């Protein structure tokens, strides 16, 4: 499984990458905002997207909307990992079709739990 990690802070990308490696996901790619992530996604081959919300260039919520508007990417599982905690934002992300929402700071157990839930749901569909 190939996972794209999108966050403008390289430290956070590295943290998520290390935690994913612990969970057995060794194949990861990185992008620092929506604008650089989108061409990587459109090129194909990405199975799972983990994105921050607050980034310069294209924000995570706009990346999510672009993904859902693209017929090739419409069913790509998307997990948002962000410090944005306003109710309006969480509802907006849910309505835009996010598959999971994790607030920073988070724990390794939360990341594992949300990823498992996302794939459980996809497998039962």
């Amino acid at each position, binding site marked *: 499984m190939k996972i794209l990690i999108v*966050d403008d*802070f390289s*430290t*956070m990308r*590295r*943290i998520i990458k*290390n*935690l994913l490696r*612990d969970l057995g996901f060794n194949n990861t790619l990185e992008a620092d905002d929506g604008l650089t992530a989108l061409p990587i996604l459109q090129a194909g081959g990405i199975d799972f997207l983990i994105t921050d*919300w*607050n*980034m310069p260039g294209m*924000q995570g*919520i706009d990346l999510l909307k672009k993904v859902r508007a693209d017929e090739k990417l419409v069913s790509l599982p998307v997990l948002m990992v962000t*410090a*944005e*905690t*306003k*109710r*309006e*934002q*969480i*509802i*907006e992300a*849910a309505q835009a079709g996010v598959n999971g*929402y*994790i*607030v*920073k*700071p*988070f*724990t*390794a157990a*939360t990341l594992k739990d949300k990823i498992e839930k996302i794939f459980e749901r996809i497998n039962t569909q």
Partner: protein
Amino acid sequence: MQADSKAAQIEAARALLAALEQDDDATVKQQLAMLSESRETALFQEVGKLTRELHEALNNFKVDSRLVDLTHKDMPDTRDRLNYVIETTEAAAHKTLGFIDETLPLANELQETAAKLDASWQRFRNREMSAEEFRELSREIEVYLPSVSTHARQIHHNLSEVTLAQGFQDLTGQVLRQVIGLVEEVEDNLVRLVKLAGQPNPTSKPAEVDPLKAEGPQINANKKANVVNNQDDVDDLLSSLGF
């Protein structure tokens, strides 16, 4: 000075000169009064204009709501934000050091026991060990091997926690970027203030609030009604939406 009043003054001056030459006292007084009156009118007009400009400048100063906002809201917010940076970096440093404190004895214990077993093992290989000593060594190895496994698991867990604690860099980085933005805005406003006396600026309108605008980590989250406090709140909200 307006052309009309200038022409009137020239006319009054000529009439004054003519009246002086003709020794016409009444007309001299009349023309002198007219001239000084027109001079006072120009002065009053100038004072009036200055008063209006001052009034507008003061009004602009008062109604520039962004400046008021900056002073009353953003500055105290910024103090909270910078305190958040101190608290978050402090907590992350303590968390990291705590896990290091917890991990070092585990590594030491593994190393010390391994060194002891190694010495005994060498004695056994050199046939310097009695049967009783060998039984003791076997017991020690039996205890040691599972402890290697639990210690290694614990060390792995502690290192993962240290990794997670580095998330402070992202969280405080977002907050510091906001503070930099505010400092730039204050600078712009100060420059505008300096220019204000010369050329009054149009009143700035308060910016519309976009509820979806990314705000980074929430400071004093528990005092804000529309902000969730933790992952459980997020999960509750999402499940209420049918997730």
